[in-house]
């Protein structure tokens, strides 16, 4: 029961923060020390991991071509799926990163009487993934309101759009609903779909459960467990953190520390887990290279020029007699070769 372990782990984290933050003096630990540590691990770890990747070269040009490449004038190139210029690569990567194009590619065929085949797309995974990632991004951006002052126009605009439906007070964020919905579906898929369940590891369930718990604690804090949740105090702490002058002067509800601790865990966990796909998606050589390897020479830094083919001279030496017999031109005539020998 791999997913059960993830639940236990997250419950343990919640207990640690919930109880720990109530011990006098520990607020500073949970409110300041842990977040600092987490963000340092996140940024440092992320940069470190990307640098580690960058240390290895891309020896060969190996784009996966998903359409017709650039060739003759009258053959139409599929510029997005088989890019040959940097601009086309950028377009391909953009669609890949922002619209998850590869996941969108799934098609299913159905045979009808006739027999006729029709195609429909099977795009649930794509939809859930898109929903989840975009709401996550929106939520991260939205939280910036707690970290910056004065708040720029665009941030208020995002906030406004996200709470467009004006449901309840404080207003319900659409992104919160989308995040929990998306994550529940991604999680449910891992449980219900037998082959996805079979390939899933602990480290697939854990981030899902963790992010779900983060969303849930956030919602609880915003709408339900409001005791000692005064956003002014919370922003004061957040602003203190980003201006390196953290202060905790007032009592803040335990739910806030739980939320913060879970976020810190996620940040610290991020660079050392599969969540690094956030950086990796930019660096995948099968996607971020132009299919121009015949038009432009790609350089492999560790290419060993000393590796030479079995030489023609050696080949001719071995088979000269037969070659001459068969009338195949040779570099050295039989007699000359013999003379040399």
């Amino acid at each position: 029961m791999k997913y059960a372990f993830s639940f236990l782990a997250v419950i343990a984290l919640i207990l640690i923060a919930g109880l720990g933050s109530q011990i006098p003096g520990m607020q500073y630990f949970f409110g300041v020390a842990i977040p600092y540590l987490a963000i340092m691990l996140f940024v440092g770890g992320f940069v470190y991991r990307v640098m580690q990747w960058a240390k290895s070269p891309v020896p060969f040009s190996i784009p996966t071509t998903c359409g017709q490449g650039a060739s003759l004038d009258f053959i139409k190139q599929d510029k997005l799926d088989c890019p040959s210029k940097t601009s086309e690569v950028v377009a391909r990567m953009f669609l890949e990163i922002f619209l998850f194009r590869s996941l969108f590619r799934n098609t299913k065929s159905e045979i009808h009487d006739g027999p006729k085949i029709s195609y429909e797309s099977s795009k649930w995974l794509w939809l859930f993934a898109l929903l989840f990632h975009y709401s996550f991004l929106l939520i991260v951006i939205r939280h910036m309101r707690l970290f910056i002052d004065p708040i720029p126009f665009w941030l208020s605009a995002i906030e406004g759009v996200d709470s467009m439906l004006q449901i309840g007070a404080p207003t319900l964020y659409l992104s919160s609903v989308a995040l929990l919905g998306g994550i529940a579906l991604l999680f449910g898929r891992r449980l219900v779909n037998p082959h996805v369940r079979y390939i899933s590891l602990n480290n697939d369930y854990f981030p899902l459960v963790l992010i779900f718990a983060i969303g849930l604690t956030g919602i609880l804090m915003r709408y339900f467990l409001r005791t000692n949740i005064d956003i002014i105090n919370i922003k004061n702490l957040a602003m203190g953190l980003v201006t390196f002058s953290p202060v905790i002067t007032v009592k803040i509800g335990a739910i806030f520390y739980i939320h913060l601790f879970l976020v810190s865990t996620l940040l610290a966990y991020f660079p050392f887990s599969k969540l690094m796909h956030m950086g990796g998606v930019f660096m995948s050589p099968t996607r971020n290279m132009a299919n121009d390897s015949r038009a432009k020479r790609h350089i492999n830094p560790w290419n060993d020029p000393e590796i030479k083919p079995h030489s023609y001279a050696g080949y001719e030496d071995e088979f000269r007699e037969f070659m001459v017999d068969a009338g195949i031109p040779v570099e050295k005539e039989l007699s000359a070769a013999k003379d040399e020998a």
Partner: protein
Amino acid sequence: MYNKGTIIPGLIIFVLFVTFPIWFNGLKAGTLPKPELPPGGEKKCVMPVEYMRANHMQLLNEWRDNVLRDDNRTVVTVEGKKYRKGLQMACMQCHSNKEKFCDNCHAYTAVKPYCWDCHLTPKEAALKEETH
């Protein structure tokens, strides 16, 4: 390290994005907003201060439903003074300066309540009373 030309700028953009609050604020934490207390000198609100700080929006919502939907328009009494439930009719009676009382904190936390789309601040209300 290979592909420095794209990876390093990429990482810089990433770090700038993550540390956005730090350089945006320029290490200035800004001043903590302090809502102005009622100019009329009232000391007591319908609920304790701590509760109001955290829950005023929920209280207003509750009132709204009481008044509009449940036909429960009971009057609130604070220190002997009676108020009809309602933003304009109760809250703004004491906290008559919306800019200094409400907006102060709301602007600080990017909360844009849609109350004022319809409800009139005392200032607005006064504006068109005079012209008449």
